[in-house]
């Protein structure tokens, strides 16, 4: 045990002390942070307001287009096209809209919009949306729909209330968040399996190629060396993720401190970091309220706990297999590719099931995928995100966890057998059949 820890310590320190570790661990969240900061900064800096002059010659809009809280400001003026053009050139407005006097609501005429600079897609959509809304309202009013009727139509958004058997409210926002959380955590585990699995494999290959394996094997057992390596690299992965989570959240809470005068504006910014949404879920808009409600209903402590369990379980299950492959091959990384294929298959398969499971957490395929140890680390995250017991029953969760632990023990045992033969073997690349023979022979 002590020797496993010694090996793990070296594996951990030799990776953590590298410059690249610092670079990726600290650098990545910093880049994300700077990226967000830049987006928000430019959103606020460009004062947002897009001024549109409207020459409503047909008096359709009654001098008012509902702009909501948008950055688009409509100003009604009476001027002809030439005057508007001049104002545009003088930069008084960013664009102008001319409604010809002959324009009728029921007709097929189109309106002309002209801008000083090229109009961005988002802005264009917003302008279109506002004007269409206004026109639609006028049209409906023209069809003898009363204003009150119109308002009631617009207010009625959620006719059906979805809820689970346990009576928990399942609004759309919650389902959406579950979907996102499931997808992200499943995908993260998928990435982890690949990145850290290949890291283990490369480490084993390095030991073999540099011929240090036998020196070490004469003081520790092969199994101890393998477990030490896996544990050490697993700790690197865990630390890296914890730092990322802390940094990403920490930096996002820092954002308002760095730009103190920004918060007022920032709330209008559509792309908002999730952390801020949770912290400042005081928006009066209905979507924000539901979003924060949805966030509060997603059981984050459970998901975090399960994430760490399945992260470690999946990592240990697969990394020992990666180690076995690393021990079997020699200098040529191409050899590793072909041996890796059978290991990659279930991971990729799990990813496919996972994309289905986030939509339908209780389909037979999702249930199977979340219990079968080779796929459960990825698939189960998608189901857990939908909550327990709505997405996955307690029994299934427990069964999946037990099977994962058993699976981990089985693959480690198998890999340990292959590893102890492979690590001292030089020469040609063994086939899977030969590796299988190593696994089941005595000594």
């Amino acid at each position: 045990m002590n020797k496993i820890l010694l090996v793990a310590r070296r594996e951990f320190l030799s990776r953590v002390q590298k410059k690249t570790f610092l670079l990726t661990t600290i650098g990545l969240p910093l880049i994300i942070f700077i990226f967000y900061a830049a987006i928000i900064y430019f959103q606020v800096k460009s004062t947002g307001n897009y001024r549109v002059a409207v020459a409503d010659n047909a008096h359709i809009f009654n001098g008012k287009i509902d702009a909501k809280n948008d950055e688009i400001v409509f100003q009604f003026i009476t001027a002809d096209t030439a005057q508007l053009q001049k104002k545009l050139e003088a930069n008084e407005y960013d664009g102008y809209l001319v409604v010809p006097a002959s324009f009728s609501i029921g007709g097929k005429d189109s309106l002309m919009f002209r801008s000083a600079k090229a109009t961005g897609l988002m802005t264009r959509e917003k302008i279109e949306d506002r004007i269409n809304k206004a026109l639609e309202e006028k049209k409906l009013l023209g069809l003898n729909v009363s204003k009150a009727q119109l308002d009631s139509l617009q207010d009625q958004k959620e006719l059906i209330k979805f809820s689970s058997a346990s009576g928990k409210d399942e609004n759309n926002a919650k389902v959406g968040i579950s979907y996102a959380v499931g997808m992200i955590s499943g995908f993260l585990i998928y990435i982890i399996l690949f990145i850290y699995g290949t890291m283990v494999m490369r480490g084993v290959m390095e030991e073999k190629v540099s011929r240090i394996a036998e020196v070490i094997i004469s003081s520790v057992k092969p199994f101890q060396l393998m477990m030490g390596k896996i544990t050490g690299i697993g700790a690197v992965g865990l630390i890296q993720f914890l730092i990322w989570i802390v940094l990403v959240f920490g930096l996002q809470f820092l954002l308002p401190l760095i730009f103190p005068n920004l918060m007022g504006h920032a709330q209008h910014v559509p792309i908002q970091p999730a952390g801020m949404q949770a912290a400042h879920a005081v928006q009066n808009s209905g979507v924000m309220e539901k979003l924060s409600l949805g966030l509060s209903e997603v059981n984050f402590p459970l998901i975090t706990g399960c994430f760490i369990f399945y992260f470690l379980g999946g990592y240990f299950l697969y990394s020992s297999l990666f180690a076995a492959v690393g021990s079997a091959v020699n200098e040529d990384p191409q050899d590793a590719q072909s041996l890796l294929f059978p290991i990659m298959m279930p991971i990729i398969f799990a990813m496919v099931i996972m994309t289905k499971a986030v939509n339908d957490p209780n389909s037979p395929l999702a249930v199977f995928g979340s219990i079968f140890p080779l796929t459960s680390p990825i698939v189960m995250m998608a189901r857990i995100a939908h909550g327990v017991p709505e997405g996955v029953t307690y029994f299934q969760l427990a069964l999946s966890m037990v099977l994962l632990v058993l699976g981990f023990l089985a693959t480690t045992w198998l890999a340990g057998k292959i590893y102890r033969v492979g690590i001292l073997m030089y020469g040609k690349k063994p086939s899977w059949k030969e590796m299988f023979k190593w696994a089941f022979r005595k000594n």
Partner: protein
Amino acid sequence: MNNILELHNLKKYYATQKAVDDISFSINRGSIFGLLGPNGAGKTTLLRMITGIFFPDSGNIIFDGKEFDPLNDIIKIGYMPEERGLYKKMKIGEQALYLAQLKGLSRSEAMEKIKFWFKRLEMESWWNKKVEDLSKGMSQKLQFVITVLHEPKLIILDEPFSGLDPLNANLIKDEIYGLAQRGCTVIFSTHRMEQVEEICDHIILMNLGQKVLDGTVSDIKQQFKENKFSIKLSEIPADIAGASFTVTDQKANALTVKIKEGFKSNDVLQYFLHQNLTVESFNEILPSLNDIFINLVEGTRAKTRAFQSSEA
């Protein structure tokens, strides 16, 4: 209780061949022991069993008077395998510290011993260098230090001098003598016979997994001597014919003679003295280990590793 290591009927078979086939021998405490054999004779397999890397199929190993227990006895053994290497990117000091700790030394103990050995072999300035910055000879030296650092009772060196220049080879050789004097036992595996002849007290020759020879260097030479002598004379007469010998070779005024069965060296000398020839020198020719080795191994179709299946 004078044996540090005793092997009794050790066997290790692989699917296609007998790597170690019923080998028994014992090694005296404090001796320098040579394990010889051609490539593929089973030396490495045998050594891996002695170091606990492999388990024998049958037979037993008595280490230091007790049944060999790989888990606990490993600290008393230092093994420098033929396939050796170090972590290329790791600093040398840290590397030595790590490997010493793996052997079971505490951090402070390890530190103390590393400092001692680094000072002794003038390696102190290497501490912060990386292995990839070292020459082959330097890393060989480091490897040696790592092997003997924890002052094991039994030191196993597989081809320790390969890649060393004569200066460093001598340095290591002196250290080996020193270790033996301080009570360490050294097993020395090689196929370089001149080194064995120089260093080893006792040797074993292995071929095809079996023990072919076992004894001290001088005993073995006596065993294989062909009763040949070289004689240097002041001048050589035209015809030399004695009843006690036949001349096998003649170069300038030196003769090589083979003594016939039933005669002794003195009979030869007497012949030349009677002839009134001045004998400048008279020496027995003992076969070199190299000759014995080649004699014994040649023609046995020693398998080399290249022909083994990948199961090993």
